[in-house]
């Protein structure tokens, strides 16, 4: 073989350059390649050379082609080797050479490090270039007159189950947040920096806290003695350890929050079994929690940015969290609406943004029109999710929800929305508290009347928007239900038809079998008859024969006698 630098087929890794060798990179899937041999892969791909069918195609010739091409490429690995360059130097059919060339190229043995081929052809007029984003000179904004740009909708693929847990943790540290939940801020140890999940010790003279471990170990900084520290048990223990909230309690909690808003004492009184802080923490954990508080307070600020549409994706929902997620979906609209009110620019739900701006402009158009508009603006996933959620809920408690929903419709325009949604959600919540729910709607209807003046400060478009969204969901769910019913009917009917056909066939078969049986019997009978008749015939013949012979004998004797 010719002298060439030692070839080292390196799979995509960087090795330090050794002075004597030249390293050539080939992909790892081509590590079967060897200079001195022809591998099975090559034999398979280029069968023509190995069949011995022609004098111009032999393994030796193939090897020469291959080696030449690879060496040619390796003279300058950064340059793309073209077929035309090598075919002038090789004797043989160009089609076959091209095949070898392409084989080597696909396996990365040549042109592996070379730049990709230039754009084929010229930029013709008829060539279409696809550009991402809006064309130049066009700015996509939320409404025709506003200047706020619209970002492309981002689809969140998070599991809704996670959303429930995580939402309580992701709250950004806004001032309003700390106002509301000042009691609950997580405490960090001054010396070791850990979260003080367990009990912590507060330094009386100053604002310094030390976690349990540090206190025990004795590292609480200088100039501080043990006596100065006061033990304070962690308030969050209950929440961190996950006190059990039953559905009924959650219901009560939500109810009372809506009623009393920020007044935690009243709320805790209502809920009875849970302390004030328990209520608060539970409420935070529920993704729509803060919005409820805010809506109850009638205040405009909210920190619930994490209340995203994550909850809207109920695709794979573990059954235990089903209820929570259903609440999420419904309340998601509500909460998202609140976000919009803030003018939160880092909102991640642009589709809802669109919803809001359009609705505000046409607050007086009919409900169905708004539904139609919303259905065009809201992304399909959201619609689908809403429909699914609504379908699930409606299938559980159809009649009950309908009453509530339609009953509240009238109130929507001048009543508050939250109670109505809340009622809907409550209605669908648990099966056990069904009776309770039946009584509740009437209660909450009364409540909603009472709380009218209080909640009237929630702007109309928000309510309408949310109402329209739920209306859309319910309509879609209704349609889906009908479709499902129809399908079931069709299936049922088809099944009956098939059954009938089968029965028919069966009876026909049976009939045929009976007929066969009869036939066989008759045949047997006829056979018997035949035999009998045969027997009779034989008898007759015998008797005639006998009589004949006897007569003959008589005659013979007579004649002999005569003679």
């Amino acid at each position, binding site marked *: 073989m010719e002298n060439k630098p030692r070839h080292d087929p390196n799979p995509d890794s960087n090795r330090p350059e050794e002075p004597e060798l030249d390293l050539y990179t080939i992909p790892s899937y081509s590590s079967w390649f060897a200079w001195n041999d022809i591998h099975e892969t090559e034999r398979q791909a280029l069968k023509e050379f190995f069949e*011995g*069918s*022609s*004098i*111009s195609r*032999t393994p*030796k*010739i193939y090897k*020469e*082609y291959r080696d*030449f091409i690879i060496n040619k490429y390796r003279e300058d690995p950064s340059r793309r080797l*073209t*077929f*035309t*360059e090598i*075919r*002038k*130097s*090789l*004797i*043989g*059919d*160009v*089609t*076959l050479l*091209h095949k070898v060339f392409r084989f080597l190229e696909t396996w990365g043995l040549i042109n592996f490090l070379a730049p990709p*081929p*230039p754009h*084929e*052809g*010229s930029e*013709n007029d008829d060539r279409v270039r696809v550009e991402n984003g809006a064309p130049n000179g066009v700015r996509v904004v939320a409404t025709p007159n506003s200047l706020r740009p619209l970002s492309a909708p981002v689809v969140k693929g998070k599991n809704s189950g996670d959303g429930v847990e995580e939402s309580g943790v992701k709250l950004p540290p806004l001032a309003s947040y700390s106002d509301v939940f000042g009691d609950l801020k997580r405490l960090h140890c001054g010396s070791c920096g850990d979260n003080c999940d367990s009990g912590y010790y507060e330094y009386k003279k100053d604002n310094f806290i030390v976690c349990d471990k540090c206190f025990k170990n004795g590292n609480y900084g200088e100039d501080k003695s043990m006596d100065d520290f006061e033990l304070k048990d962690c308030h969050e223990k209950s929440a961190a350890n996950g006190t059990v909230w039953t559905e009924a309690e959650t219901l009560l909690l939500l109810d009372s929050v809506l009623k009393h808003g920020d007044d935690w004492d009243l709320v805790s009184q209502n809920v009875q079994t849970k302390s004030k802080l328990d209520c608060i923490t539970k409420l935070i954990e529920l993704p729509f929690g803060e919005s409820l508080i805010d809506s109850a307070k009638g205040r405009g600020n909210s920190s619930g940015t994490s209340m995203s549409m994550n909850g809207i994706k109920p695709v794979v929902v573990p059954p235990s969290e089903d209820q929570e997620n259903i609440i999420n979906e419904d309340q998601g609209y509500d909460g998202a609406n609140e976000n919009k009110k803030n003018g939160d620019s880092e909102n991640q739900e642009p589709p809802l943004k669109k919803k809001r701006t359009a609705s505000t402009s046409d607050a007086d158009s009919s409900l169905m029109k708004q539904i139609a508009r919303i259905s065009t603006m809201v992304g399909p996933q959201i619609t689908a999710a809403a429909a699914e959620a609504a379908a699930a809920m409606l299938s559980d408690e159809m009649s009950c929800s309908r009453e509530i929903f339609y009953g509240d419709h009238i109130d929507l325009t001048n009543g508050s929305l939250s109670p109505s949604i809340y009622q809907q959600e409550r209605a669908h919540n648990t099966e056990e508290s069904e009776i309770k729910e039946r009584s509740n709607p009437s209660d909450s209807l009364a409540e909603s009347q009472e709380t009218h003046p209080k909640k009237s400060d929630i702007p109309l478009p928000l309510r309408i928007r949310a109402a329209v969204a739920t209306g859309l969901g319910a309509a879609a769910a209704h349609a889906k239900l009908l479709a499902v019913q129809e399908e079931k009917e069709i299936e049922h009917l088809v099944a009956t038809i098939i059954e009938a056909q089968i029965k028919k066939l069966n009876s026909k078969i049976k009939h045929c079998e009976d007929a066969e049986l009869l036939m066989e019997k008759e045949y047997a009978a006829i056979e018997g008859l035949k035999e009998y008749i045969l027997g009779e015939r034989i008898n007759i013949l015998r008797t005639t024969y006998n009589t004949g012979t006897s007569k003959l004998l008589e005659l013979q004797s007579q004649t002999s006698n005569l003679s």
Partner: protein
Amino acid sequence: MKSLASASWKAPLKFRMPTAENLIPIRLDIEVDGQRYKDAFTWNPYDPDSEVVMFAKRTVKDLKLAPGFLPQIVQSIQSQLATFRSYEGQDMYVGDKIIPIKLDLQVNHTVIRDQFLWDLNNFDSDPEEFARTLCTDLGIEDPEVGPAVAFAIREQLYEIAIQNVTSARENRISKKGRRAAEHFTPSKASGAALDLMKLFSFRSSVVRKRKEWDYYKPVLDLLSNEEVDALEAKEERSGR
């Protein structure tokens, strides 16, 4: 020698284009009322004849030719198709033949001269693909060059194929007594075929000598407008 001969013996095949797709080259050069129409394209011989008329009509309309062109175009195409069909039933004997194909054509502003080898026995060969690769490798932007190259290749293959049929016929006639089909030694066939024995033997290498490299690589020329006009004028003069 004998064993090699038997190894490369091939049963006679029905006449067809020795390419992956059985398309035949059609060349038109018609002059009516001072208007000259020259064209060259590939045609699928299995298209129904009605296609010919439709194609002619469309061409006349697109190129705004005089209506007198229509019957002439149709007739020309059909006669070429008929020639093809007359060969179709015959046996064609290809053997193991590698022939040199030469390109020397001018398309608009591009002039290509090239030479390469083509295996007639390789029924996977695709002139269009070869033309595409050539244009990409040479960076030719004119989209008309590729099809012209492919057509030139096809035309030459067609010629050779016809020659095969005729010579096969002749051989059969001359050797009426023998039963088995003949094995074409390269020397008997048209002189263009290469001597495979010499080239692909064990001793020789398949890599060409360097000095020959320039003969077998494509030469590309880009003409300016004046040169194009000059060439056209020369052609017309020589044609008349």
